[in-house]
């Protein structure tokens, strides 16, 4: 995606570095306005979603693209489908100010642009939303996990990884294999020996 917009100006190049180097005054023009700017994300199946620029910053991938100046037109995300992107955009909106990403963002920006985004503990409402958000079948959960991986969104990743871990708790060995689509590569003898060893885990 970053290669799509060739010829970033030298000032934009500088922008990527202040986070690490601690010299921040140069802001990308796109973020300079400080108002409620929106960007448009386009899914692989050509659905378009408007998302608050600051909400989109929850994704490191989107943040890099915005800083590279890709945020002017619709931003194509070919490996995300419309329904997945719709859910993700909704989560970003609900996670505004979530410490899981806001901490990181506050460190990177020094101009107080995200001051309305002061980290706050997830409220009961947000937690309820998260629970609802991952009450989906396995395939849909995996879609969201892959989206979290692609977008590098810590909050989304946190919620979806927790859901995957919760799903297999209290499952039997066979159920875990089935859920994760794994083949049993133990010989019957090996498996019997291993199960005997871990007997107390199966009680």
């Amino acid at each position, binding site marked *: 995606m970053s290669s799509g917009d060739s010829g970033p100006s030298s000032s934009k190049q500088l922008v990527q570095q202040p986070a690490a180097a601690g010299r921040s005054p140069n802001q990308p023009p796109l973020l300079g306005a400080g108002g409620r700017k929106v960007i448009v994300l386009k899914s692989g199946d050509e659905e378009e979603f408007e998302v608050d620029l600051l909400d989109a910053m929850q994704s490191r991938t989107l943040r890099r693209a915005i800083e590279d100046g890709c945020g002017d037109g619709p931003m194509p995300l070919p490996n995300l489908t419309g329904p997945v992107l719709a859910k993700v955009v909704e989560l970003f909106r609900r996670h505004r100010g979530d410490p899981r990403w806001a901490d990181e963002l506050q460190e990177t920006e020094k101009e107080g642009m995200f001051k309305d985004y002061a980290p706050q503990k997830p409220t009961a409402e947000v937690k309820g939303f998260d629970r609802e958000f991952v009450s989906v079948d396995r395939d849909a959960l995996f879609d969201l996990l892959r989206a979290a991986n692609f977008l590098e969104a810590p909050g989304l990743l946190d919620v979806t990884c927790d859901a995957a*871990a919760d799903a*297999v708790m209290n499952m*039997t*060995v066979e159920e875990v294999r089935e859920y994760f689509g794994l083949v049993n*590569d133990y010989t019957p003898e090996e498996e019997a020996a291993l199960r005997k*060893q*871990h007997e107390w885990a199966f009680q």
Partner: protein
Amino acid sequence: MASASSPPQKSGQVDVLDSPLISGLPDDIALLCLARIPRRYHGILRCVSKKWKALLCSEEWRSCRQRHDLQETWIYALCRRNKRRNCYYVFDPNSDRRSWTCLQSVPPQCLKREGMAFETIGSKLYVLGGCSWGEDSTDEVYFYDASINTWAKGCPMPTPRYIDQKHLTDSKGFGTLTKGNTKMSLGGRVLPIPIFSEEGKRCYFVSAVLGDRLYTTDGAGMGSKTFQTWDTYDPCLDSWTSNQDRKLAADVQKLISLDGKIYSIHEPNHEFHYAGTFDPTDNDWEHSNSEIALCWRGPTVIVDEILYMLDETSGAKLMRWQEETGDWVSVGRLSPLLVKPPCQVVANGRTIIVIGKGLSTIAVDVDKAAKVGGMLVSSFSLPELDSDLSVLSCKTITI
């Protein structure tokens, strides 16, 4: 036990390594998901596939759980039943259903011996030396690896200087023992029967873990000797080194690992007590503040580099070592109704867990524990499990 190390050599190996951890997910995301599964389910995860089993005992797994603050500490207790037989118990203090569970498949040698050292390094629990009726003290080392739930044998402790049975009494009635090819007089001491090698460190010796090294030296009452020696075990290399230093005094009652040093706490001589310190950076023993040696009285535990002692001389009183003033201050008393002495202590985060006779257990939060009538209020307690059990030592393993 053998299955733990042998299988991934043959034909299927390439397939195992190439297949994803979870089909349809990148491995780093799969690891993030799996690492969140609580430790009590890890036994099930290991049975799912060879790749998962390998993952669960890998450094990658350990560091992922550490990085994301997912590590869990379990407590391991070495107990003796009716003074005859050992048993090993494990306890998950963070579980909703707290209870002690007996470890299975323990090597028989670790069940009968007494005077063994009991230490944990990383994911491993070490059981060293010991002796039993009908068996001289031994140099054997066994360990239990909690990341794979299996027991194995480690490198034996440095060559023990056995008492040479032939030379036990010479014509003058004096005992001799062979140390290498040197004979040493035992000075007419009455030898106990059975004979535990007096100059060896295989039975009733003391130990401590500092960093990733295990240190052992002779315990108190080990008789006259020219030098006190100590041995160091490196678990990565599974090897021992022996050292000696005139400055390490005899009659060590216990070793404590604190502030990057090892403190040797010595058996008090009349009213005089003594402590030494060992600094691994210069490999040297020094004298230390003697007041710290008052902790010879009871079991000790370290919480965030602060030393606590359970003084059981009259009731059970938790004391804290105050480095700045060089003295012990009282934290509070423990209710004798909840935990029966003699006790052992371990730490789980900022909580001290006191384990008494029969595995009666209480937890005291060092920051939050309120006092009612001078008694510390526990954050949880477990009743006695089995009155025949005496707790000899407790350690923790964090995975």
